[in-house]
């Protein structure tokens, strides 16, 4: 798999190097001056749950955690977010308060303070979502699908969202950045020590009147210390009481490399079509342990997803294919015990999910979706049908 990623990186480098497309300088994108706030609410009806009852959700073979909660059957409020943003000249503050898919509590998800140093550089800090890919910070209500991308649920705990500092630049369409993290969130986890995480990324975007193209790459590194699956720990506010399990910890190195890209084109009339996708590879080497067992652990998981869409006027058809390729080795006398406990036994087949979505935009604030997902991310293959709606309103400031 390493060779596969290396060759992919080389291909991407060749692709970028071969471009002869002149790009003009774009001003750094900043929020509008003053205060504005956006409210987003999404709800859905699902024909089936991702797992039975209050089971612990783990894609077999992966070490999951963070805030990756499974969707449930029936009607439910998926997400609720209020996002106030204030900017005065080069300084801006952004908050994000709400609840995300699978959780039941309101929480302060982001508190971000940013400062634009000049036309090329900005510094941001606080509790925020990483932007090593633009998709990490996305919620289902931002997309054409009511579920989070499998790769993010399985490898990033839904979203990598931590306290940290970000230096980002934009020069001639080339977005780059360095993010330093406290390392207190999955897949990093800090406990009593100075363990941390960081990532670097670069993306190149070009666009004209009818086309846009973006390609990028990133690298993430964390040292996990006593990382457990906090979703089901007794102290976690979201965990159903009946699902709590005695903790099993991972200590070790987490390294992730990824490539992403998007492409969209407008055709004559109101037609447009496009593709976006990402390939990521996580390598985790370290040790698993619980109160009485210990085993060495090596895991390499490749996650892929791609989305194709076609839109005309207010209608949008999308297809998303997602796949995980999991390879794990567990060493030691307790290998079987811990693999059993953590559901580390791979299913034999790659976990995957294919989703077809149709979306109708009623107006600028409300859109409805119908989806059919074929899911094989647990031991049971399921067809899940979903009807959902997303309401987004600027409640204060521009657009209000």
């Amino acid at each position, binding site marked *: 798999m390493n060779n596969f990623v290396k060759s992919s990186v080389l291909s991407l480098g060749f692709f970028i190097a071969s471009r002869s*497309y002149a790009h003009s300088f774009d001003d750094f994108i900043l929020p509008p001056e003053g205060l504005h706030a956006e409210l987003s609410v999404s709800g859905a009806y699902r024909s089936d749950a991702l797992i039975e009852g209050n089971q612990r959700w783990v894609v077999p073979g992966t070490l999951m955690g963070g805030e990756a909660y499974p969707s449930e059957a029936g009607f439910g409020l998926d997400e609720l977010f209020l996002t106030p943003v204030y900017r005065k000249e080069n300084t801006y503050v952004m908050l994000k308060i709400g609840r995300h898919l699978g959780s039941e509590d309101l929480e302060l998800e982001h508190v971000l303070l940013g400062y634009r140093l000049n036309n090329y550089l900005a510094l941001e800090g606080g509790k925020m979502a990483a932007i090593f890919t633009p998709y990490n910070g996305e919620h289902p209500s931002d997309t054409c699908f009511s579920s989070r991308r499998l790769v993010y649920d399985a490898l990033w705990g839904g979203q990598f969202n931590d306290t940290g500092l970000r230096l980002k630049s934009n020069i001639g369409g080339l977005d780059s950045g360095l993010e330093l993290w406290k390392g207190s969130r999955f897949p990093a986890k800090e406990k009593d020590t100075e363990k941390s995480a960081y990532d670097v990324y670069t993306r190149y975007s070009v666009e004209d009147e009818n086309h846009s193209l973006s390609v990028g790459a990133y690298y993430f590194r964390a040292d996990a210390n006593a990382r457990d699956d906090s979703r089901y720990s007794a102290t976690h506010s979201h965990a159903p009481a009946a699902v709590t399990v005695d903790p099993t910890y991972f200590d070790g190195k987490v390294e992730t490399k990824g490539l992403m890209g998007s492409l969209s084109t407008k055709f004559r009339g109101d037609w447009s079509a496009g593709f976006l996708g990402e390939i990521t590879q996580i390598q985790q080497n370290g040790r698993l342990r619980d109160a*009485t067992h210990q085993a060495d652990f090596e895991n390499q998981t490749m996650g892929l997803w791609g989305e194709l869409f076609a839109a005309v006027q207010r209608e949008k058809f999308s297809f998303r294919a997602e796949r995980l390729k*999991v*390879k*794990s080795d567990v060493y030691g006398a307790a*290998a*079987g015990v811990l693999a059993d406990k953590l559901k580390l036994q791979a*299913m034999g087949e790659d976990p995957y999910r294919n989703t077809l979505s149709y979306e109708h935009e009623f107006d600028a604030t409300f859109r409805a979706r119908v989806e059919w997902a074929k899911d094989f991310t647990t*031991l049971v293959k399921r067809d899940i049908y979903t009807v959902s709606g997303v309401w987004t309103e600027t409640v204060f400031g521009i657009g209000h």
Partner: protein
Amino acid sequence: MFITLSMRALSLTILLFLAACRNDSSTKLHQVSTALSGEAFLWTVPLNMPLPKLNPDNPMSEAKFQLGRHLFYDKNLSGNGTLSCSSCHQQDKAFTDGRTVAIGSTGQSHPRNAQALVNVAYYASLTWANTSLVSVEQQVFIPLFGENPIEHGITQDNWPMVVARLEAEPRYTALFAAAFPSETPVFTQEYITKALAVFVKGLTSFNSAYDRHLSGDNTQYGASEQRGQSLFFGEKMECFHCHGGYNFSDSTADRTMTFVNRPFHNTGLYNIDGSGKFPAPNRGLFEATGKTSDMGRFRAPTLRNIAKTAPYMHDGSVKDLSAVVDFYAAGGRNIETGELHGDGRKNPFKDGFVTGFVVSEQEKKDLISFLESLTDESFLTNPRFSNPWDLRGSSSR
């Protein structure tokens, strides 16, 4: 130009996805460190399973195993020469006897159902409910020499006669000499119990359809078993809390563990007069501790080969797996008449996980399919565990 770039990007992406389409997710377990631990005994345990704890006073050996196997199947090892261990622990029934309760050599009924001898070496405690009985060597004394109830019926008085019968069997001379080469005399209670303990601990079972499914072989593991597995490990039915882990029992110990739990559970089988009582002398851990809160608490047995070990529960009072599922779905048992009347569902000492659940006929079938997938046919027919006296067609054993 843009179209060219776009086509390159799209082609690259499609190539990446095509390359990813081959199913090759896998998990490999490497437990060589224990499998090749230098023990002079061939555990029939796959590499992905930990090995049982060792008893330093009775190291495992093939010679002891073979001696224990002969003793296990020998009716001469009883007071009146009518009963062997295998009378109540028959291989084709996962070493149970199919009876409600066992019957001893004198015809006396045992108050409890004969337990399956499956992965006994992995139990954290032995027998249905005794927190202090933690080695098979200790436990073996009870059926051989116990007086209440009488099982093998060996006493101080008839012990010399039992030894004489064993000494008369020529095969034992070599077997004892091989098992305990440097020590004399050979026909002692200590050596007999040690050899029996080694044989019983060697009865390991990890080759069920479920185990093969975990290794990627689904030939005997279909959709029903998979649905049943989800139910079993789900919070709706709660089965796995007491019957979880690789041995499907929460009372499990192996050599990778530093600390061992010895849990016991009251499942709401009885609630005599609404007082929480179970019928004596079957009152679970209470019989050993005298604590009221231990009333009706029994060890969760392994569910490996469970389909072969009916009837169920400590007193054999539940006839089959269907009735077992109904029992747990009801959250206990309500006995409306008779001297045992009382609503077990309301037993004040009942385990918190036995809360009842709604189960459809399909779910019940699926759950039972899963439980049946825990049957290890190779264990039930393994010649290594079979009656060695059959090989010479002896009618006396």
